[in-house]
């Protein structure tokens, strides 16, 4: 079990409104989508076959939503290494097409110090054209058992 809550928040514990500096990922070429399909098992032809994408009403294969959602973890870890991500959720709003990149960022929207230091983060992933691709939220706890390795 992650030890969280037996100590007060550290002096530099973030405040509501603090921003998580944006980070870019991609561009995700079709080869990258094929590699993600291989490691995730998500071989939905929608992401790999242009004709399947067209049949679903898209101009081309979209990047796996889960690949984009996965980018929030390195964003949060780069921001602070003393956090346990207890919850991550995302709503997939618009597709990001193969060949495009994304930019993810976040903001602290809630802070709780007791009974344990906890933050709620609003997370967003935007496509190259600035469309909102994913609206996400994370709950992170102060991880007193030491920094993540």
């Amino acid at each position: 079990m992650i030890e969280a809550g037996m100590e007060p928040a550290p002096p530099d514990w973030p405040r509501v409104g603090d921003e998580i500096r944006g980070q870019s990922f991609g561009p995700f070429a079709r080869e990258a989508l094929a590699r993600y399909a291989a490691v995730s098992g998500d071989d939905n032809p929608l992401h790999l076959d242009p004709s399947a994408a067209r049949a679903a009403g898209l101009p081309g294969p979209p990047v796996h939503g889960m690949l984009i959602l996965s980018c929030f973890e390195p964003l949060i870890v780069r921001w602070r290494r003393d956090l346990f991500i207890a919850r991550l959720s995302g709503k997939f709003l618009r597709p990001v097409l193969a060949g495009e990149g994304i930019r993810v960022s976040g903001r602290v929207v809630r802070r709780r110090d007791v009974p344990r230091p906890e933050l709620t983060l609003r997370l967003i992933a935007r496509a190259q054209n600035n469309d909102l691709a994913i609206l996400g939220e994370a709950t992170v706890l102060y991880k007193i058992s030491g920094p993540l390795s």
Partner: protein
Amino acid sequence: MNALHDHAQSRDGMAPEPSADAPVRLPPIRVRTGAGEVAGFLRETGGARNGGFVPLTFPIRWMALPALSGLILQLIGGDFLPVHETQSFAYERELRVEADYVLSVEVRRTAKPPRLTLKMDVSSGQGEICAQLETVLRIVPLNLEPAS
């Protein structure tokens, strides 16, 4: 969603017959966080840390297991594609590399709107809940073009 090409493998008799809007529960599924699979997943998902940990979204790959992907296909039916609508992960404890876990899976199809909702509990061998996932898939009809 996952492993749509595995339909043939789903005919293993494990998936109970679904009824409208009734949840379908699969028998417990044993899985392992193999070091090779974890490293490959981390490599393709922009992992910022060194290895030795299981990425937060790694359990999504278990949706590609034949028993689960087959059930998804069975519930969706032909000429439709699942499109990911929402996803959540809730962790009680981090997963460890090279460890065994047990999945409990429940899938429900709703007709209005046409959705599949999957709930997956990831437990340790001792029965402690480690993580819970919820996946909502929108069911999209394919507009198949006639062959030219």
